């Protein structure tokens, strides 16, 4: 008779008695999906703008109105001089200075061109980049309208661009973020909790008592893994439900494909957890080691920085990061109707990781006991 059912029963008893695990499994998906996408926003609004208008003409006022009317900028002050505006940047009241030289209107009408000066506080690099890009595109739009006004009939040359956001028509950052959060969550439940659980047996010495029984290592490891595999799937399901209820996002691709991939992915993550647990002797160690790697997985998994904009070496490293693959698949299958053929490279990569990590972990487990 196999002892696996006995061991599984014991694990489930312990898991259901551990309030913290239950809280994490149920509260985490709910809270994270409601709170995080609201807080994380890649769009910048309310960029504080200080204007130094030396011209005070009709055209310069039209430019400023156009900028403040865009909704992205908030005019904090009409400064009398650049120095005054600079002081506003120093006191952090303004993010961007727009300086319009005197004679702006005259030169623009007479010579057909003029320059304005933009200075950006680049402490927050992202905000600076996005802010000046917005400003530049607004000024470009203003340019065209001025040309039309001054020289009616002269059709402006150039290319007009219209764009459409595929698979996420409103280009809602929240929606592309949701699958990524889901990926992080099942990684934590699958990898971290299972590792902590095994190390706990080491820490409390119960593993000694287990080791003098006829329980085989295979059964012990399976009994430790299966409950967390199931738990991670439960968390995944709760996550999908929350995404549907709060954001109306329904996976476009096949649910079966999604669960199938997650099932394999969890094997890889749990192999990682198992490996960590064989090297650690206390839960504290396991926690820190896991935390360290999960941070790297998250930052190098294309969740925050798109893979394509990473340096080439980092792109290669990211291929060995399981979170990269699950993140891609989650986005592809939930937002785009991708099929097995599309995600096959990811599936194979994750399956290979699962094999390598688990074999390594089991070999190391033998050696250390």
């Amino acid at each position, binding site marked *: 008779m196999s002892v696996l059912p006995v061991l599984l029963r*014991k694990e489930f008893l*312990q898991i259901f008695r551990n309030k913290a695990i239950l809280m994490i499994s149920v509260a985490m998906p709910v809270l994270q999906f409601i709170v995080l996408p609201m807080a994380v926003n890649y769009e910048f609004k309310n960029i504080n703008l200080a204007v130094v208008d030396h011209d005070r003409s009709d055209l310069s006022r039209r430019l400023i109105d156009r900028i403040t009317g865009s909704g992205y900028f908030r005019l904090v002050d009409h400064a009398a001089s650049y120095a005054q505006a600079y002081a506003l940047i120093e006191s952090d009241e303004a993010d961007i200075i727009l300086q319009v030289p005197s004679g702006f209107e005259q030169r623009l009408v007479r010579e057909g061109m003029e320059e304005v000066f933009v200075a950006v506080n680049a402490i927050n690099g992202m905000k600076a980049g996005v802010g000046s890009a917005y400003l530049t595109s607004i000024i470009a739009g203003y340019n065209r309208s001025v040309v039309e006004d001054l020289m009616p009939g002269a059709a402006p040359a150039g290319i007009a661009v219209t764009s459409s956001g595929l698979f996420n028509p409103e280009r809602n950052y929240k929606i592309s973020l949701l699958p990524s959060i889901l990926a992080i969550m099942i990684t934590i439940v699958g990898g971290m909790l299972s590792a902590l659980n095994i190390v706990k047996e080491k820490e*409390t*010495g119960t593993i000694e*008592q287990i080791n*003098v*029984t*006829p*329980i085989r290592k295979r059964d012990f490891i399976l009994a430790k893994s299966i409950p967390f595999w199931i738990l991670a799937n439960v968390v995944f399901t709760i996550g999908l439900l929350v995404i549907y209820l709060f954001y109306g996002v329904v996976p476009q691709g096949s649910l079966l494909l999604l669960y199938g991939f997650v099932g394999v992915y969890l094997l890889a993550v749990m192999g990682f957890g198992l490996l960590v647990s064989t090297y650690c002797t206390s839960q504290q160690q396991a926690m820190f080691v896991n935390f360290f790697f999960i941070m790297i997985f998250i930052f190098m998994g294309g969740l925050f920085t798109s893979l394509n904009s990473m340096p080439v070496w980092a792109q290669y490293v990211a291929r060995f990061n399981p979170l990269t693959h699950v993140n891609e698949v989650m986005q592809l299958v939930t937002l785009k109707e991708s099929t097995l053929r599309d995600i096959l490279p990811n599936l194979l990569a994750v399956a290979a990781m699962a094999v390598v990590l688990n074999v390594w972990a089991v070999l190391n487990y033998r050696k250390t006991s």
Partner: protein
Amino acid sequence: MELAIEATDLSKWYGKEKTLAVDHVSLAVKPGELFGLIGPDGAGKTSIFRMLTTLLLPNTGTARVNGFDVVKDYVEIRDRVGYMPGRFSLYQDLTVEENLSFFATVFNTTIEENHHLIKDIYVQLEPFKKRYAGKLSGGMKQKLALCCALIHRPEVLFLDEPTTGVDPVSRKDFWEMLARLKEHGITILVATPYMDEATRCDRIALIQEGRILQVDTPAAITAAYPDRLFQVKGGSMSATLRALNKLDGIIRCYGSGEFAHVAVPATATDMEQRIKDHLLAQGLTDVVVRPAIPTIEDVFIKFTQEKKA
């Protein structure tokens, strides 16, 4: 007759410095014997236990438990032995009953099947059977651990410091339980740092710094004590020992409970009177000097001091 435990030349060292924890130990325990490993903390008792219970591989030597080799036949041994580690290592978040039935089922048996083995102990635990193991008192934890180690009716029982941190009454209970277990024919190897528990064993091995000093029955070991021993009292212990140290012709003196123990050569005569006179001459009052029967502790101190010399 085959030995229950047979260790030959067993050694274990740890780390890069190869610190020797067990130093070429040989042991022979007969079936049904209650055998004690007596030694201070760090003597290597736990390492010997872990090698005999297949948890640790020896660096040199071999050991057999009920005829099975601890390295090659570890699977058979794990079926046949019960081990109670020095540290409480049951599931604290499972109840008394759940722990017991878990370990029973793991060995493919049930609580009912071997109830007769544990019933004396289990009656005391029964009122708490729905309580989490982590919430039990120290003595109750030890009893539960013993039950869990016994529930599959092991042929050999390994108890590593089972009474450490347990109150004197529970300790006494515990040893009475072990005496009853012997009647079921179970071989018991028990480690303890308490010298007074040694007399409860059939035979003992005195162990220090990984080496076995002596193996025999407790009575034979104390009988072989070569020196004559007196117990002495007079004023404070420190004053007594200070005064005794000035006296010629004694081998060693040390505090033991409320008395100081003084060992003198067996051939010396009239030492009782000489000690008394000396202490009175040193200005001590209420001096008591009388012959004492050596205990295991006295034997141990003899070994320790001989090693230092």
